[in-house]
């Protein structure tokens, strides 16, 4: 009975098209590096991207690749492959998809453009511990050395003790030394400093972009936002990332000045919490028929980006990165996440939160209830929660998802009329 009608998301900005090209170019570059015999790193989780710039490192980010495969609606196939290898449906669809890509006997031409086998694996338990074990399988399968960066969880709030910074700094240092020992050359500290300073620029720009998006009507919804956030995933510490964000900011500023929204009559502003359906981003445009816009999504921060830029000090590069990893919302402590969503709801003038539960995620579903309660208590803004796996198209049911959105939006409109 499940209906499978999917449509790609409708993007409205010029810069996001450019960013899409940059993504392809990035992975193309990795492929070329492999052909030139350079060692390729697979990085699991949120290893701070900046450290790789201290070395001549070519990196594939394993949680990102499935998004691209997913957008082409190919994820189901690779997920299936992983399941045939013995991975349960309960573990993260991103990891299943990635493992499937890794072990598939044949890859389709699209994936083949980007996919290269690893020479080293650098893994970490940030943002989620539960999935950090999936790299074991890959390391075993490809028989390559791996290093595990242990990120402590933040039990301290904003007041991080020195010993925690020291620990995480040590872990990053360990990873750098490890890569160095495994043929990636010597660590260039100046380059690392420069990366941290560029990373700071990137986040300052992102904050300004966010300011623009707070405008009513919003000049950019999350359909564009998810592509736009790509530099946060892959390009922190690069000039390219900064340049792309500068262009985006300019485009958005123009739109705000002209009062251009992404739809004509913006009546409702929604926040998306959880993984959106990457194989069917059209679902986010679906709500537009009610005059609703998905203004923002928490997943734009999947690789971090919700922290105070003032903590970034290029003279202390590793410490800065440690600090960032501990206070950012991707560090799995619900206090940070809940407070962040609270702020977002206020700053972005959100009318309702759509929380989607990806059952195979060990991390995000746990936030649903605390977020829902906190947001309601704070601003009286309701949250609807329903099941939707953003990557595994086989689990998707269009009718049920739309029924949930319809019901939620009607209830929102009814309460607006009151």
């Amino acid at each position: 009975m499940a209906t499978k009608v999917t449509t790609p998301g409708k993007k409205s900005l010029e810069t996001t098209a450019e960013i899409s090209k940059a993504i392809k170019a990035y992975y193309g570059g990795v492929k070329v590096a492999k052909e030139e015999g350079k060692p390729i790193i697979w990085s699991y989780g949120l290893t701070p991207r900046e450290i790789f710039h201290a070395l001549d490192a070519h990196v594939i980010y394993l949680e990102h690749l499935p998004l691209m495969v997913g957008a082409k609606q190919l994820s189901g196939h690779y997920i299936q492959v992983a399941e045939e290898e013995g991975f349960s449906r309960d573990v993260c669809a991103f990891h299943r998809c990635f493992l499937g890509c890794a072990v598939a006997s044949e890859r389709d031409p699209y994936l083949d453009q980007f996919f290269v086998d690893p020479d080293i694996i650098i893994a970490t338990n940030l943002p989620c511990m539960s999935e950090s074990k999936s790299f074991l399988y890959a390391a075993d399968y490809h028989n390559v050395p791996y290093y595990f960066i242990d990120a402590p969880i933040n039990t301290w709030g904003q007041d991080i003790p020195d010993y925690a910074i020291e620990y995480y700094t040590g872990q990053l240092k360990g990873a750098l030394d490890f890569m160095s020992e495994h043929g990636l050359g010597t660590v260039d500290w100046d380059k690392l400093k420069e990366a941290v300073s560029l990373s700071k620029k990137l986040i300052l720009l992102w904050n300004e972009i966010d300011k623009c998006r707070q405008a009513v009507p919003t000049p950019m919804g999350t359909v564009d936002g998810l592509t736009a956030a790509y530099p946060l995933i892959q390009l922190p510490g690069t000039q390219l990332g900064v340049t792309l964000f500068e262009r985006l900011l300019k485009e958005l500023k123009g739109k705000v000045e002209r009062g251009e929204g992404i739809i004509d009559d913006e009546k409702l502003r929604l926040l998306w919490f959880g993984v959106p359906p990457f194989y069917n981003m059209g679902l986010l445009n679906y709500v537009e028929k009610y005059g609703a816009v998905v203004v923002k999504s928490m997943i734009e921060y999947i690789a971090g980006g919700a922290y105070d830029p003032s903590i970034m000090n290029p003279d202390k590069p590793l410490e800065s990165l440690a600090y960032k990893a501990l206070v950012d919302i991707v560090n799995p402590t619900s206090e940070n996440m809940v407070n962040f969503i609270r702020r977002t709801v206020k700053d972005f003038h959100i009318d309702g939160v759509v929380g989607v539960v990806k059952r195979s995620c060990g991390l995000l579903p746990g936030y649903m209830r605390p977020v829902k309660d906190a947001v309601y208590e704070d601003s009286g803004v309701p949250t609807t929660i329903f099941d939707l796996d953003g990557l595994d198209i086989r689990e998707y049911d269009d009718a049920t998802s739309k029924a949930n959105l319809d019901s939620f939006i009607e209830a929102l409109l009814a309460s607006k009329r009151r």
Partner: protein
Amino acid sequence: MTTMERIMGIFDDPEQIVRDLKAKGKKVIGYRCLYVPEEIIHAAGMLPYSTFGTPEPITKADSYFQPCACEFVRNIFDLGLDGKFDFLDGLVLSNTCDAVRHLKNMWTTYIGSVPCYMLNNPQKMYDESAFKFYRHELEGFKKTMEDLSGNKISDASLRKSIDLYDETRRLLKELNELRKRDVPPISGAEALRISMASILMPKEETNALLLQLIDEVKTREIKDADGPRIMVTGSIIDNPTLIELVEDMGGVVVADDLCTSMKYFWYQTKPNEDPMDAIVRFNLERSVCACMHPSEERYDFLQEVIGGFAVDGIIYFNVKYCHPFVYESATFRKKLEEETPVLALEVDHSLSGLGQLKTRVQAFIEML
């Protein structure tokens, strides 16, 4: 009443221990799980109490956790919401997996009656910087326990607690060695019951009982058992039903890899001048479960047990949605299977759907 019967009695009503002690004014600290050093709680004059789950279906917790959080954690939270842990003076959790991390947050937000503390243990073993970090965390934890109990913890008192717990672990291991025999004098289900009762009881009492039990068991009359020798592994198993199921189907459960059983007592602390350091090393130089890195050590442990206990087949009972174990077992399975057959099952912590499990276990045992 035999010692065995006494121990089984404790298992059936674990809270009796607490009732008596609480009546005498002793404080009780719940903990989950092995990375919380019981010794520190004990040295502060309190009783560390392992919070096990029950096989009840989940009710209220479902509006807090989504159904995809591991059922064990949802079960503990359910019991907490129901006030079943209200007798505790505090609950200490350790940083093991995302489910437990959320449990901490949920507990603090929604259950006011019992304060909850998260011990931020590293997830990396054999790493100097991890030792250092953990030591800092333990100092903070020690302070918290001192404040809660009103008692100072001296090096000497901590040393004494460590010795006491080491003795428990030693005795349990001694008893467990008997399972290596061709015909083990205790069944797998009994072994789990004994181990869980020993975890729950005050160790002073446990040790005395275990001494008697070892004597009793050595001379016990035993029925022949000629079924295949099974090792059980997987996420937490805090109920003997699954082991019984294997034994009912003719398997002889001789060993396991469970944090409620062999992994609890397999290791001893190493001699160390500084008792806090002894604990640091103890916890970060043994691999209790799939939550820790690296995993090679766990694989070696499995190998050692397979050889030592003459294991014919391995059964994985992974709690549904327990991600660390799912990945690890998929990785290990391939290698293990080269020599020893493996059956990997996913189970509900509430033990529903036993019928289907039974069929698969039966088929596996018949194959062996």
